[in-house]
């Protein structure tokens, strides 16, 4: 009976994989994998059709990178503070507040990025477009701070007290203990947290669809408008492509690329966790 519940999740995943593979199979028989991976333009809906996934990948990569650069330092520092420094009452008050950050609907974050963050950044960043990867990335970073801080905090908590006491015994300050002993000891857990944060950022749709733009653009300049894989899927599925046409199949080709990355990241985090977990009893 309980096995059935587990079976449901397995079957759902299998179903998703099946749909993705079968639809994109049709796509890849028409467009060569080589073209898909190397062409530098993505314009499947327009007169001159190009099917290179690189612009969408660079959009996803750029926004994710900015998000991670924002979220990891902040998230880890918050986790260290909550774990090593904060007194218990403050901790109890701060944790729910952090959860609120995660509870805000992503569409709200999207409009926040578009109407508050972008105009603010435009006052001191030269050449910042109205749609840009920078504000979308920053707001996404804000959004995944709770993911990273919460998991990192659990990892820090799991470090045995004896390690800290030994460090204090040697005369280290709280800061030195925290950052030179405890954090390295919890590094596997923190890495897992970061990887899950990355996976979340890659799959994020609303924030980037609203604030990062709808123009596939192969660039590493965060001030330009870019389109991520997820935003493209939204854009096409809300339009009027014919069911079964090649344009329709691009949704699944983009989807399976996304799936492959998220899958690899999840497996990586799993493997890392297993590999480094046994180090500290």
């Amino acid at each position, binding site marked *: 009976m309980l096995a059935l519940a587990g079976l449901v999740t397995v079957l759902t995943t299998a179903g998703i994989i099946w749909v993705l593979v079968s639809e994109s199979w049709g796509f890849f028989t028409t467009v060569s994998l080589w073209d898909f991976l190397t062409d530098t*333009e993505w*314009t499947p*809906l327009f*007169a001159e059709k190009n099917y290179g996934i690189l612009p969408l990948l660079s959009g996803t990569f750029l926004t994710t990178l900015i998000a991670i650069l924002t979220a990891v330092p902040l998230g880890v520092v918050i986790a260290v503070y909550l774990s090593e420094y904060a007194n218990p009452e403050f901790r109890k008050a701060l944790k729910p507040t952090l959860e609120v950050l995660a509870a805000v609907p992503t569409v709200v974050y999207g409009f926040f990025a578009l109407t508050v963050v*972008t105009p603010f950044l435009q006052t001191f960043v030269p050449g910042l*477009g*109205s*749609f840009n990867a920078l504000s979308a990335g920053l707001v996404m970073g804000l959004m995944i701070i709770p993911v990273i801080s919460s998991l990192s905090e659990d990892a820090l908590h799991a470090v045995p007290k004896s390690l800290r006491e030994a460090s204090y015994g040697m005369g280290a300050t709280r800061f030195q203990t925290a950052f030179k002993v405890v954090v390295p000891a919890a590094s596997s857990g923190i890495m897992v947290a970061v990887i899950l944060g990355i996976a979340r950022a890659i799959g994020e749709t609303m924030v980037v669809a609203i604030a990062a733009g*709808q123009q596939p653009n192969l660039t590493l300049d965060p001030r330009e408008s870019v389109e991520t894989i997820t935003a493209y899927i939204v854009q096409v599925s809300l*339009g009027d492509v014919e069911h079964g046409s090649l344009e329709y199949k691009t949704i699944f080709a983009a989807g399976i690329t996304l799936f492959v990355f998220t899958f690899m990241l999840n497996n990586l985090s799993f493997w890392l966790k297993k590999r480094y977990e046994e180090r500290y009893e």
Partner: protein
Amino acid sequence: MPRKILVLVGGILLVLALSECGSRNDKGTVEGEVRIDGSSTVYPITEAVAEEFRLDEPRVRVTVGVSGTGGGFNKFGRGEIDINNASRPIKEREASQCEANNLKFIGIRVAYDGLVVVVSKQNKWLNEISVEELKRIWEPEAQGKITRWSQINPEWPNEEFHLYGPGIASGTYDYFTEAVVGKAGSSRGDYTASEDDNVLVQGISGDKNGLAFFGLAYYEENKEKLRVIGVDGGDGVVMPSEETVKNGQYMPLSRPIFIYVSDIAAARPEVRSFVKFYLDNANFLVSDVGYIPLTNEEYKIELAKFEAFLSDEASDGSATERSRGLSVNIIPSNLLP
């Protein structure tokens, strides 16, 4: 305890009674729902009509979506919506889809629209552009190759431009590409494409190297953020305005816009009531939202067309032949000087 329950129940009944008093359940002559979707260009007019209509007929639920003319026709052809807002006439493929689903339809002109070419307020140097230059910017061959202003006109700055425009589901896109590039649906793909004109306004307003095209009404709404530039269609530079669109001077970017109604939907009294209300009040509401109304005679003609459609489909006539409407003429005959 029983007293408390009594007070509670009494309170609830009171609230219900009061809400009944406020409700307009006896007002209006019809009830039901009218589902509308389609062009973002026609949307402001239809939404304005819907708002007024709701005051007259509060028991009719009118919903208006914005999927783009093409997206709307898809739903229209499947019978998922009753009325499609269209900024271009129906295509052959879409008409066949309707036929395949046993749907007859009629296209009704509701207003004239001008397509404006806009830049941001921060752009001080661009005041006019010719159709030829627009073509060189927007044609498919320009994709990836033409990226700087100076490539089009050496007097323009040597900076990269950023293009914004409706996507392929938009009738505005179809009309612009036909009028400028020469073939509907034929343009470069590397621009910010969105069927939601508000996204385009947002994009352009902060981008000093931006260039966009969309319907006149969205420019009128956002005059503080945008600057419109004149278009030279071969006879000198013309700035778009109610006058120049109405008398056909602003060409080739003037066009009629439509609503399409299916016969299945028109069989319902609330839909008939809505369409008649539309045509009766369009004159005033169309100007209110920034478009150019048809003349009073033209509205009467459209209303007569609709009445004929209704009586025709009641006797199962060949309404489809008459209502197929125009192919995309660059200049509708009534706009010719």
